[in-house]
């Protein structure tokens, strides 16, 4: 039985005929039509496919459906719902700092930042360096850092 909760809704992957080996990313995208989670590399290198699984930031391109049983999964589409259907502070800061360029990496970037601030509400630049390993080919890194510091009220030593 591979039953989990995705964005607050119970999903039974067995009933949907999804095999255990399929990475969560492709079940989200092609079986559940939740395309906000993106494919960038398929080998856990880029973070475009980042989702929250039981509160952890996980690269869903290498996370098999077989491991999802009993897990609570949140994707970018469900993030605001975890905050009373309002944008989270990170999402708001992303708009304020005009972070996204093409935007393709940003679902993953935002979910990685959410997790960082949950673990370390007052992150240093070293904390940001360690946690934010997502690739952004448009290079929004300067603004990602500024937006995180803005939400946390911490000092940006790289500005």
């Amino acid at each position, binding site marked *: 039985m591979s*039953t989990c909760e995705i964005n607050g809704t119970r999903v039974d992957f067995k009933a949907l005929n999804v095999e255990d080996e399929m990475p969560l990313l492709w079940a989200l995208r*092609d079986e559940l039509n939740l*395309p906000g989670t*993106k*494919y960038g590399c398929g080998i856990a290198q880029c973070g475009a496919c980042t989702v929250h699984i039981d509160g952890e930031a996980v690269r869903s391109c290498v996370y098999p459906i077989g491991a999802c049983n009993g897990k609570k999964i949140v994707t970018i*589409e469900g993030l605001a719902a975890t905050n009373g259907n309002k944008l989270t502070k990170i999402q708001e800061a992303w*708009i304020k700092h005009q972070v996204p360029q093409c*935007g393709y990496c940003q679902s993953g970037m935002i979910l990685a930042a959410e997790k960082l601030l949950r673990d370390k509400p007052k992150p240093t630049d070293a904390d940001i360096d360690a946690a934010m*390993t997502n690739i952004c*080919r448009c290079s929004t890194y300067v603004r990602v850092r500024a937006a995180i510091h803005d939400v946390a009220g911490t000092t940006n030593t790289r500005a």
Partner: protein
Amino acid sequence: MNTTNVSRREFLQTSAGATAGLVIGFNFPSSNAQSKAPATAGIAAGNVGGTSEVNAWIHITPDNRVLVKFARSEMGQGTSTSLPMMVAEELECDWSRVEISEAMYSEHIKRNRLYVTTATGGSRGTRDSASVMLNAGATARAMLVQAAAARWSVPVSECVTANSIITHTPSKRTVTYGAVAEAASKLKAPEKVALKDPKDWKLVGKPIPRIDIPDKVVGKPMYGIDVVRPGMVHAAIAQCPVFGGKVKSIDAASLAAAKRMKGVADVLDMGEYVAVVGNNWWRCNQAVKSLKVTWDEGGNGNVSSESIKKYMQEGVAKPATLAKTTGDFAKAYADAPTKLEAEFYAPYLDHAPMEPMNCTAEVKDGFVTVWVPTQSAEAAAAAAARAANVAPDKVEVYRQQLGGGFGRRGAFQDFSRQAVEIAMKVNKPVKLLWSREEDIQHGHYRPATVARLQGALDKDGKLVALSARVGVQSILERVRPEALRKTESGPVDPMATSCFDDSPYAIPNLRTEHFYAKQHVPVGFWRAVAHSQNPVFRECFMDELAARAKRDPYQFRMDLLSGTADPVRRDRGVLEAVAKGADWSKPMPANHFRGIAVQDAYGSHAASVVEIEKLANGKLKIKRVVIAVDCGHVAHADAAKAQIEGCMIYALTAALYGEITIKNGRVEQSNFHDYPMMKISETPKIVSLLVPSGGFWGGMGEPPMAPLTPALLNAIFAATGKMHRSLPLSKEGVLFA
């Protein structure tokens, strides 16, 4: 257990519910391919559904919404905000009611290239649109005023406009744009309209929040990869690893096994590639990977990076095809007391946008529709039309959001062609997605380049002679061979010797030659194109010459920028600005070093200072980058700065790590583990200086790339005394902290 099988639609609705109300003004008919709106929604030919087409670019609804046609591609540069801003500036309309709507390819073709071009490249999205957009706004405004004046029977001169409202000043009567839009749309457009003085601009240049951003923080935009069509199948492909090769055979057992794999509908031998179609892309890709394909590699199975480099080194060792000559280089060089000679190398580079190549295609009754993240609707349509053997007016293109472009999604539409080919074969809508591996191994690469430079200084240390012999494949040959310059000794691609031919420096004796290299590796328009490598050669050599002359590299350049022509003046301007911004006149702290460089590109001028620290362990740390750009007029101050930030990392990534190598005719790299990207931890401080001198519109998406790498290499030269003339630095043993 209480388990519900939630439907796809419910998922979509739940997700959309959380974000309702956030979205303003993003009205692409293609932005949700599943929406119930007909495919033609938003295309008003004439006046449709109460919406009046005041001119090709501007449609106004009775309730005052202004729909601005967007013919370019939004890939993060902010053009979908800055172009409507120009329209709104001259139209004097309410910015909060402006929406963008896709300028459809079919309209463009049907109405005699209505939108001028649908391509986005060469940093032209803004600079070539500016006058069109400003004029469209001004023309529409004049027509609206004329319609209102006619309704009131008053002179046009007594009417003023603001915020989508026309006021007859003497009587204080008002009317909205929406109320007179239909009447205005029937008027003849004025031939000439006066445009505002740039100093009166209220919107243009301002950092207005970008229209596309709210959607992008909730995962809502529809990129090409997200398109879903009724009855659609997914497709994954494997192309011959050696460029130009084709399928010889597919092992029968592996073929039978792949066909039996879950979700696989069919395995197709497409001649030049194999394709698997099925109900989930991952399943298709697993099946493609399981196939044992024997390839006919063509004649290039022995080519390697080393063989290519050696071939080009031999090419530039002897005279090549003359591109430009002024003065008498040979004599000046022979006579000069100080000479310097250097050979530079830059490798092949792949674009690797975050969204791998993809296209969704549907072919029905001789009509082809593609949903594609493309930098050129026309190029996508041309590829689709050729593949389906139909006329260009039998194609429709829905441009999707692009998950990055950087030049990869423009002229070469291999993915669009393939999607159509597969759709025809299976007779169903097909979404083709390349794996990241296919994406990196089947690019249209920034060409590898070898440049042999010679320079001579007179007895006062002044540069009197410069020669550049550049060995590089021609990109132009692949897209517009008729534009190559023909000479007695063969063709010259003007891009090959750019940055030297048009060098702003006062060099009395200059000679440039192109060794017209031929290789099987496909080359294309990588961000900044030739301005990604030629400025490295020129500006690093300038520092080496300055060192020979025992001159400060900034002063050495300034002395040679003595002309009064606009480009020279502007190069001088950005050099001064960057030197000031980086405190060039003050010495650096202990163990800190810096380099400087300048380059004009795509109508703009850019100069950069890169500051590095030499750490005790011998590693280098990039501490700060200062960039000054003169793009004439700034279209959008914040988006311009974002482009500078983007260019900085795109260029530095290439300088530090970027290299596509060839072995046995094929690309050795395959994904981000062996084609690495800079990350946030490596991102230095950046100071972006916009120093617009006015009077022209320059590009922003590429120009800031040009001076960055040479400024970095010059900083390392200052730190170590060694000029690294070959990229990437990782191959040179230069380590960064």
